């Protein structure tokens, strides 16, 4: 039995009274003051998340770009030095091994930030990369005021090396909340100093609970829930992150699905009746499965993502979810489920 790992900020989380849970083999804070309060802080001002559990793989040297271009779904030719891109690692069947962000540091020099639970399968599928996850602590600062609290100017999906509140960081205009903000990679030995400095700017500490409700309102899929090695990007509505005009693992199946359609599609829905949908619940009419579900802290109603037959995937279609024996009505909505005006 491997014991759970701790990030450099574990003592800080414990001191703040966080509830700690095991997540992908890490002891992580799920909430501090409360999920809804933290969620609203990110929608209205700024919140900070310890995401040091996430993995980092890197590849540099001659041929690095071609190697990744043949294995990742998005076209690395679309980004220049200092730019980042959402992309997918696919298997031979076109299923999703992981979703990740690729950072282009230079010609033939890339950093990949991957899900904590998938570092091993990712590394197995990309054996030429080096696992450098231990080299970085990672903090996500998110919300409409996130960048100004850190005195940063940063465009979405760009990154650079910079000093943030006196700490040397890899500063990236990325995140998982549907808000502006940044992700800061620093030396693990500097993580406590950076965390303290961010909190001193009035940024609210937020746990994985709020991270999950925020990403669900924004309709960002969670690997292991909404996407998996058994689901393809076309079914999941992630065709925009697949360059079907280049060759990469599993592309033939994706081209076929793109041309012929898929039997199911991942849709977002809102409940009109009271109740909270949860992962694993069944949709009865049309038939389907809930892959993520929660209460939306911003809308105050049950929301979720579900796979439904492609013929029943239009926004506005009414659905019925079986909430532990109680049928509850809702309807399919256009993604995202919630977007703040101006975000």
């Amino acid at each position, binding site marked *: 039995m491997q014991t759970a790992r701790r990030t450099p900020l574990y003592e800080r989380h414990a001191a703040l009274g966080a509830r700690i849970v095991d997540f992908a083999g890490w002891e992580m804070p799920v909430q501090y003051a409360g*999920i809804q309060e933290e969620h609203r802080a990110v929608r209205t001002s700024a919140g900070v998340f310890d995401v040091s559990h996430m993995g980092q793989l890197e590849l540099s040297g001659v041929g690095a770009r071609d190697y990744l271009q043949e294995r990742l779904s998005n076209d690395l030719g679309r980004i220049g030095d200092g730019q980042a891109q959402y992309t997918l690692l696919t298997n031979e069947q076109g299923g999703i091994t992981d979703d990740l962000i690729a950072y282009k540091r230079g010609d033939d020099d890339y950093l990949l930030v991957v899900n904590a639970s998938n570092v091993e399968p990712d590394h197995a599928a990309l054996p030429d990369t080096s696992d450098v996850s231990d080299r970085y602590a990672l903090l996500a600062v998110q919300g409409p005021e996130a960048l100004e609290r850190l005195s940063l100017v940063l465009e979405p999906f760009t990154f650079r090396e910079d000093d943030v509140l006196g700490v040397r960081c890899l500063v990236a205009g990325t995140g998982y909340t549907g808000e502006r903000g940044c992700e800061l990679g620093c030396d693990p030995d500097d993580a406590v100093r950076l965390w303290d400095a961010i909190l001193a700017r009035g940024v609210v500490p937020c746990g994985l609970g709020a991270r*999950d409700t925020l990403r669900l309102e924004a309709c960002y899929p969670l690997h292991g829930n909404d996407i998996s090695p058994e689901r393809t990007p076309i079914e999941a509505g992630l065709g925009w992150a697949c360059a079907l005009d280049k060759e990469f693992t599993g592309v033939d199946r994706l081209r076929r699905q793109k041309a012929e359609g898929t039997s199911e599609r991942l849709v977002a829905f809102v409940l009109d009746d009271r109740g*909270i949908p949860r992962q694993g619940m069944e949709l009865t009419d049309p038939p389907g499965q809930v892959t993520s579900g929660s*209460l939306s*802290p911003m809308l105050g109603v049950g929301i979720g993502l579900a796979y439904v037959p492609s013929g029943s995937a239009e926004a506005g279609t009414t659905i019925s979810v079986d909430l*532990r024996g109680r049928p509850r009505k809702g309807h399919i909505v256009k993604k995202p489920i919630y977007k703040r005006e101006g975000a």
Partner: protein
Amino acid sequence: MAADESYPEELKYHREHDWAKVDGDTATIGITWYAQDALGEIVHFEPPEQGGSVAKDESYGEVESVKAVSDLVSPLSGEVAEVNQAVVAEPEKINEDPYGEGWLIKVRLSDPSEVDGLLDLAAYKELLSE
């Protein structure tokens, strides 16, 4: 605002962290401070039907936090005389006042002798310390 930890002397307790306030052949039922604290912010109360029956040690409804669902276990048997509709509308009352405004249902008892099988405060506190 969440309430401070407390367990009133006059209540009877069930080991699944429910309380009952017995008044003749009627009992008011809710969940203890410990139960609401373990759940965190409660965002949904799925009540039983008024007039329906509840059975001792069996589920009569659900409360949910953002992350989790928890069955409500009835400490006593009888008929649901009243559902606290204020908590249906504002489930956070359970966190704010678990023994007052956060009560859940009132039950007309079918077997008042079941009360003797419930825990008193000392026995419930012992259970919590285990």
